[in-house]
C-alpha cells in the first residue's frame, strides 16, 4: 500500500498536498470532476518525484457513484485527504435553496457520503488516515458566509464523531481548519497578507499534523488563537458586529 487518495484534487490546496505527499514518498490517486485538467500536473509530479500518479473522475455531488468509485480502486489507499469545497455566492444562497443546497452538499453531504464508504473500509482493515479540510468559518457563524460556515461546522462535527468511532480501530482522523489561504477560491479578495497562508504552507502543516498523529490543526497556527477570541465574544455582543 503506497497510495494516498486526494479528493477535490484540482483545488490549489489539494495540489500542494499532492506535491508534498509525493515528495515524501507516497504514490497518488487524484480524484476530481474533470480529470483531463490535471494531465500536466500528473506529469509535473512524476518528473519531480518519480512517484506514480493516477487520475480518477469523481463528482462529489453524484452520491450514487461513490461506492462504485471506491470499489474500482484495485489497490486501496493508505489514507485519504478531502479538499472538496464550495464557498458559493452567499447573497444568492439567502434567497435560493438551489445555491444553499449546492453549498451544503458540496461541503458536507457529498464529503460525508464518500468518507462513510472509506471509513468503513479503513475500520475493517484497522489502518489508515482520513484528513478532512474544514474551515475556521465553521467555528462561528457570521453574516457574510454562514451557510458555507454552517456546512463546515457540520463537517467538523462529523469528523470529530468519526475520530471518536475510529479511535478503537487505530484510524487517524485529522480536521484541518485553514484561515485565509491564497487560492482560486479567494482570488480577487483583499486578504490581510500576514494572516493569509500560501497553499504549500498549508500542505506542509497538513503533512506534519497527519504524520504526528494530530486531531485538529489550524493553519496558519495563529488562527487557533484568533478563533479562540472570536468564539469568546458573547452572543449579545457578537450579533451587533461586522467581522
Amino acid at each position: 500500500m503506497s497510495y494516498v487518495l486526494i479528493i477535490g484534487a484540482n483545488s490549489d490546496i489539494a495540489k500542494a498536498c499532492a506535491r508534498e505527499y509525493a515528495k515524501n514518498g507516497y504514490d497518488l490517486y487524484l480524484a476530481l470532476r474533470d480529470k483531463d485538467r490535471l494531465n500536466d500536473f500528473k506529469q509535473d509530479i512524476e518528473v519531480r518525484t518519480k512517484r506514480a500518479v493516477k487520475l480518477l473522475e469523481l463528482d462529489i455531488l453524484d452520491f450514487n457513484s461513490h461506492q462504485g468509485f471506491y470499489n474500482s480502486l484495485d489497490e486501496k489507499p493508505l489514507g485519504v485527504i478531502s479538499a472538496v469545497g464550495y464557498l458559493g455566492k452567499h447573497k444568492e444562497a439567502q434567497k435560493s435553496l438551489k445555491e444553499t443546497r449546492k453549498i451544503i452538499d458540496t461541503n458536507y453531504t457529498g464529503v460525508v457520503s464518500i468518507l462513510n464508504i472509506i471509513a468503513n473500509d479503513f475500520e475493517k482493515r484497522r489502518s489508515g488516515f482520513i484528513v478532512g479540510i474544514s474551515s475556521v468559518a465553521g467555528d462561528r457563524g457570521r453574516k457574510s458566509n454562514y451557510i458555507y460556515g454552517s456546512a463546515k461546522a457540520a463537517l467538523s462535527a462529523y469528523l470529530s464523531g468519526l475520530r471518536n468511532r475510529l479511535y478503537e480501530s487505530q484510524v487517524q482522523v485529522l480536521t484541518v481548519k485553514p484561515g485565509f489561504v491564497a487560492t482560486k477560491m479567494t482570488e480577487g479578495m483583499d486578504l490581510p497578507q500576514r494572516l493569509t497562508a500560501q497553499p504549500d504552507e498549508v500542505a506542509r502543516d497538513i503533512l506534519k499534523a497527519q504524520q504526528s498523529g494530530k486531531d485538529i490543526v489550524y493553519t496558519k497556527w495563529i488562527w487557533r488563537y484568533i478563533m479562540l477570541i472570536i468564539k469568546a465574544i458573547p452572543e449579545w455582543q457578537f450579533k451587533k458586529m461586522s467581522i
Partner: protein
Amino acid sequence: MLCTAWGNYPKIECKRYKFNTIEELGEIIDSKSPLIPYGNGRSYGDSALAHHIIETRQRDYFIDFDEKSGLLYIEAGVLLSEILEHFVPRGWFLKITPGTKLITIGGAIASDVHGKNHHKEGCFSSCVKEFEIMLPDGKIVTCTPKDTPNLWRATCGGQGLTGVILRAKIYLKKIESKYIRQTTIKTANLKETFEAFEEYSDMPYSVAWIDCLAKGEDIGKSLLMVGDFDSDGELDYRLKDTKTIPIDFPVFALNSWSVRAFNMLYYGRVKEKISKQRVDIDTFFYPLDAIGDWNRIYGKRGFTQYQFILPKESSFEGLQRILKEISNSGKGSFLAVLKLYGKANNNWLSFPMEGYSLALDFKIESGLFELLDRLDRIVVEYGGRIYLTKDVRVSKDIFEKGYPNIDKFREFREKNGMSGVFESLQSKRLEI
C-alpha cells in the same frame, strides 16, 4: 497594491496580473501594456517593476527530464530551489547558479545570471538548450541560439524586455556529493587577492569576500573561497527551514560601525593563511538564503546593491581607486563580493566580461547616490559597466558607455514591436 523587489526600494503602486492559460496571457499583453514580467522579485532594483506586472511564479510545472543527457524541461516560474530539492538527491546539480536559489528560471534567463564558476562555465544561457517565449503579438516562439540568434541575444540578459518566457530546457550537471571541498585563502591586500585568484583559477568555483572599509596598506584584504564538489556519494539533500527577520530593522541599526564590526569578525575568524573546510551546497552557494528575508535588516527605506565589472587590464588600478572612495565615504556593506570573471558572451545586455567584478550593498540614505555617481565615473573611465539586475539609479549616459551593443538591442525591440509593450521603470529611465 505596492510592489517592490529585493532592495525594497522603490515601492510603487502597481497592478499584478496572473494567467492560467496562454490565451489569458495573450489578452493581458494585448490590453494591459506597457507591462513587465515579474519572477520571484530577487532582482534588487527596478528591472522587474512597472505599474503593470505579469506574475510568472505560479507557472511552475516540471515537464520532462532525460536521465541520460541531464536535460530538464520546466516552466519559467520554477524556482532553482525546487530543482535542487528534487534533483540533488538523484545526483544532479545546476550547471550555473547565482548566490541565491530563490529565483525563477525566467529570471535566470532574463538576467543571464552567473555564479562562482563564471570563469569556467559562463552565464546561465550556456546551460539553456532552448526556451519558449511569448512575443508582443501573442505568438510563442521556441528560441535557440541557432535558429533565432537575435531573439536569443536580446532575451538572455534582456531583463524581460522582449517578451514573457514560458518554458525552457536546461542541462543539469552530474554530482557525486552534496558537499564541497573548500579552501579559504586569507589575503592582506588587493595585490595578494588578485594573485590568489590567478593562482586558483583552475578551481571550478571561486569568490572572495572583501573588507571594503579597510584603509591604506590594507585596501583589498579578502577571504578568497575556492572549491569543488566532493565525491563521497552523500546526496541526502533537503531544503532547510529558513530563519526569518520579523520586522524591518530601524535605520540606525546599520551604521558604519556595525558594518565594520561585522567585517572584522568575519575576517578575523579565519586564523590561518590557507585553511580547508568541507561544507554543504547551501553553505557554499547560498549562505544568504539561510535567513529568509535578510533584506529587511536595511530598514524601511530599503537598500541597493552596486555591482560593476572592470576589464582585467584596468581592474587593479580601478578597484584601488573605487575601494579608496568607498572607504573614505564611511558607507559600505556587510557584503562585498569580488570575483574574477571569464570571457564575455555574445548576448547584447549580459553583464559579465573578462575582469574583476565587485558587488556591495548600501542602505538608501542621503548622499548615497552622489557617492555612486562618483563611482560610476571611475567605472566607465576604466571601461567597465554596471549590472542591470542590481541597479536602480544609474544614468542613461553611464549605462550606454558600458553596453556597446545597446543600439542593436533598441533597434531589435523597435523592429519587433517590443518597445512600448514591455517596459520597466528601468527601461524607461535608461530609454532601453
